[in-house]
């Protein structure tokens, strides 16, 4: 009887032990669902169609990832500032959310290799007379708080010190509203978003006034910093997307033209 009890306990422990070691990747596969944080006011990366369904590059990327994992994709709309709380609170598994891989953020979140690269342009109204990045120095400008381009623009306005000011908004939609109303005279956004907004025709009189002289903004997928299993899988997935031509295919569909290079010369990663 006693032997049976010990054997039973040992068997139970043996079954329970591997389960206790399961990592996020196992959890996703086991649950059958991949929950992706996607920003849905950032076209063409993420937005909603006429029927309110999520669409965009990031949405398709999440769907591809879910298909590779053999699970269902679930798009969780997440505004820019909420990406880390969404991960940490377990509301999402992965952030497919155009997240710039700054070293400051990498202390907190786990970044993959870049899955997309942005260049930035100046978006303004036709009536402001702004004809390039340097002429922003004397204007009121705005951007989404804490984004790569927002931080760079804020820093330059402070550095120039010529009477311009910077306003951070909580969402890309608020920035475009403020710009179209005249609350701000210009913003710096990724070229993809700018083209999409100008072509979209929702806001009249917006125009692109040249490039912003920033380094390319490489963005990675994000997951919890300690989830190496998942992060490794995501790195390989990004590599496969490029290798198979799927990256180019998605780029053509949502942006058009040749997809940007995701590697930096003379250095790994």
């Amino acid at each position, binding site marked *: 009887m006693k032997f049976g009890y010990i054997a039973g306990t040992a068997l139970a422990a043996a079954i329970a032990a591997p389960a206790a070691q399961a990592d996020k990747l196992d959890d996703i596969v086991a649950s059958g669902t991949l929950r992706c944080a996607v920003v849905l006011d950032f076209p063409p990366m993420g937005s909603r169609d006429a029927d309110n369904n999520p669409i965009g590059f990031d949405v398709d990327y999440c769907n591809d990832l879910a298909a590779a994992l053999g699970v269902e994709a679930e798009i969780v709309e997440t505004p820019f500032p909420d990406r880390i709380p969404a991960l*940490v609170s377990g509301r999402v598994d992965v952030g497919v959310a155009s997240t710039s891989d700054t070293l*400051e*953020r990498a202390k907190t979140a786990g970044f993959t290799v870049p899955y997309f690269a942005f260049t930035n342009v100046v978006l303004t109204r036709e009536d402001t007379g702004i004809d390039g990045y340097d002429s922003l120095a004397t204007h009121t400008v705005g951007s989404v708080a804490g984004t790569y381009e927002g*931080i760079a623009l804020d820093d330059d306005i402070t550095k120039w010190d010529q009477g311009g000011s910077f306003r951070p908004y909580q969402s890309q939609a*608020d920035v475009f509203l*403020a710009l179209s109303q*005249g609350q701000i005279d210009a913003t710096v956004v990724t070229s993809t978003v700018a083209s999409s907004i100008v072509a979209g025709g929702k806001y009249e009189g917006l125009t692109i006034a040249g490039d912003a002289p920033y380094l390319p903004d490489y963005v990675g997928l994000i997951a919890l910093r300690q989830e190496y299993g998942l992060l490794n899988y995501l790195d390989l997935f990004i590599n496969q997307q490029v290798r198979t031509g799927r990256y180019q295919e998605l780029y053509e569909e949502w942006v058009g033209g040749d997809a940007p290079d995701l590697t930096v010369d003379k250095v790994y990663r």
Partner: protein
Amino acid sequence: MGNYTFQWRQALRALPDMLDGALVTMQIAILSMLIGITIAVFLAVARNSKSRWLRAPATAWVELARNTPALFQIYMAHFGLGSFGIYLSPYVALLAGIAFNNAGYLCETFRGSLRAIPDTQIRAGRSLGMSAPKAFRLIVMPQMFRIAFLPTMNQMVWAILMTSLGVTVGMSTDLTGVTQDLNARSFRTFEFFALAAVIYYLITKAVMLAARLLAWRLFRY
């Protein structure tokens, strides 16, 4: 929170910036209270008046201020007026939104306080040869403020907390604005938010303590 390790050192290093933000928060709260109290006195008098032309707009103000969210009021001050070509900076829009809200709530506080003061007080003043406005100013208003003092301080606490809604209209220099910016740069959300919560708590506690001390000094018989 099993997925998150707190890194307090980084948050504490940003404490001076957050305290600067807290000063801006206090500045807006105090200004919005001064404006709110001034408007509320007029609104309270108007709501008690016999003229419909005075009563109706004052009632409309109070109804709107008390029955719509403060977030909506601030958002309308920035983006709503913006669509009519009236541009308020985030600072002014936040101030206007909170002052509007304060005036609505304080009006009802003052009106209740006015009702608590017997009409005979005015008549007593008039019988001493005062004009009606003078009797109101010297006899009724001091008593009104005595009754309304602590509820007014409650509104002050509410005003301090309402400043946090400024982030929705691009306010970046108050405590919440500074906190959001630090959060977006580093993603250390919970440390920064916890620190901000502690600062808000200490400010509002300090305000209430000061109010109690002041009430004890001013209003003892």
